């Protein structure tokens, strides 16, 4: 997993609430046996009419050339629904390393963190402030300090992250490395409960 510290970039706003993982990556694209290449189908049915790549939906932010950057900003309750990690893979593969929302679904949050994608949960008010910015505004997400800042106005907010997860992200560690390192403890536990 790639380490993540501070990111300053423009953002892509998707001001829609309750975005479920079926929208992030529709089920018909879950048939791969690798983790690569999901980015091109990110928000597939909101990007193209009738699943036709020649018919882009002009008003969808991912199709608008004025929006760019590795920060995705979305309405509250982002990532609800299916547990498909393909949603996190698609977001990462499309070039995003941070998702900002005012509320995240549990499983999506874990999946994002397990792939080095940082979910930044802000207040509803702060989220609306970001949506009001123009497309040249940059945001800075500082994981060490746990802050997110809007450059044009200097407004900032703190966000929470589990200290263990923070260490993992800052260093690019995986949970699985940790779990494999305590296998003896796990085996001892098994004899206790047997």
């Amino acid at each position: 997993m790639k380490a993540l510290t501070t990111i300053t970039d423009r953002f892509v706003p998707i001001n829609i609430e309750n975005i479920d993982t079926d929208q992030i990556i529709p089920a018909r694209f879950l048939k791969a046996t690798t983790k690569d290449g999901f980015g091109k189908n990110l928000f597939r049915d909101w990007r193209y009419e009738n699943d036709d790549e020649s018919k882009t939906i002009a008003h969808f932010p991912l199709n608008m050339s004025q929006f760019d950057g590795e920060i995705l900003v979305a309405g509250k309750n982002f990532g609800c629904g299916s547990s498909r990690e393909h949603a996190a893979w698609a977001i990462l593969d499309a070039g995003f390393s941070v998702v900002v929302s005012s509320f995240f679904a549990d499983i999506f949050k874990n999946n994002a963190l397990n792939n080095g994608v940082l979910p930044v949960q802000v207040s509803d008010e702060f989220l609306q402030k970001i949506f009001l910015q123009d497309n040249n505004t940059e945001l800075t997400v500082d994981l060490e300090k746990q802050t997110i800042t809007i450059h044009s106005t200097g407004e900032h907010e703190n966000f929470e992250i589990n200290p263990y997860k923070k260490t993992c992200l800052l260093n690019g560690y995986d949970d699985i490395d940790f779990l494999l390192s305590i296998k003896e403890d796990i085996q001892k536990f098994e004899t206790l409960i047997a």
Partner: protein
Amino acid sequence: MAKTLFEKIWEKHIVKTIDNGPSVLYIDKHLIHEVTSPQAFTGLNNRGIKVFRPKQVVATADHNVPTLNQHLPIKEELSRLQVEALIKNCAEHDIELYGLGHQYQGIVHVIGPELGITQPGMTIVCGDSHTSTHGAFGAIAFGIGTSEVEMVMATQCLLQSKPKLMRIIVDGELNKGVVSKDIVLYLLSKITASGATGYAVEFAGSAIRSLSMEARMTICNMSIEMGGRCGLIAPDEVTFEYINGREFAPKGEEWNKKITEWKQLFSDTNAMFDKEIHFKAEDIEPMITYGTNPGMGIGISQNIPTTETINENDKSGLSKSLAYMGLEQGHAIKGQKVDYVFIGSCTNSRIEDLRMVASFVKGKKKANDVEVWIVPGSKQVEAQAIAEGIDKVFEEAGFILRQPGCSACLGMNEDKIPAGKYCISTSNRNFEGRQGAGARTLLASPLSAAAAAITGVVTDVRELLN
């Protein structure tokens, strides 16, 4: 100290806790399927390690299997490759696979309980959000992502933070025509699709207690639709009776020992919940969804909400939702034309669901311009339905009894609802495109779905019950 049901199970499974961090949670049973496991196996293979406890893993093929002609090779190439990868991975890692053609094959959340694999007090995970279903037995059961599938395969453990605890109490007696699916759609309409995010939800109260095991599974199944990390119901005699005698249920002395343990699995009288919500069963009528998240549901006699009457959570999305659904604010949902009826999914594809539908449609015929798909949850459900003559009832009504799989719940196989068509569905999600690009889903109970199959429109089933 008084403890909740969740805490009693959670604490027994903690291997260790990281300072200021999550706990290492031991997993008793790991269920896997073809869609969310291949990348996890690749991860293990890249590390050169084997599945740590293969006897605690059970596999099936369900998400993208066809539901007709299962004896033939899978036509769709990518689906076939995924199913083949599962066969190869299970063979290499010594995992029991109930694949296509096996008498136990079926939807992962149907076969676990049906085979007695799911038991009270366990921790159960699967790379599928509807793993919450198994909580109906008084287990901590939740969906995980593929990285976590890999972790459990490698170590039989997961890093988890303890969720907050919520108790939803439904007391009273259910009205005529109201079944467990209506209860959960009602709860969703009240607490919204994110109302339980961050919580483990225990369902309690006399109305919940009165339900059969299969009906309880429907409730816990959709706890994820409220955002819940998992759903649980304390086990009781109904639970024990359901498990007794099943293939992998404890037997003999072991059974007696387990029953003693399981009887301790309840929330103590003074146990503390972070949140508790009460509902009355009498307030619930047959439910149906009108929008594009499962919290957007109403009683069948009600009108679709308007921007003025809808809850805060769904206000901003109402217009977009209704535009997608082709429905109008303030209009009645009753009488809405239906093109497809889908009775199936891990929510409602068990034998009781099929019996409920059969007993309602016996002697009736489906409406001419409606297509009705009945997809049993497992080979065992299918066999039981045939043994009881339910297949004949369906045939006479013009319904098609297909073969087991997830089917049109998420349209990963060929069973897709065409764009713009309305499908009344017993599944769990009405998200845009869930049942096929452009498909319009109305979630309802098996009984309400059966009523619509007969009339061709959204119907108040109570008007057709004697």
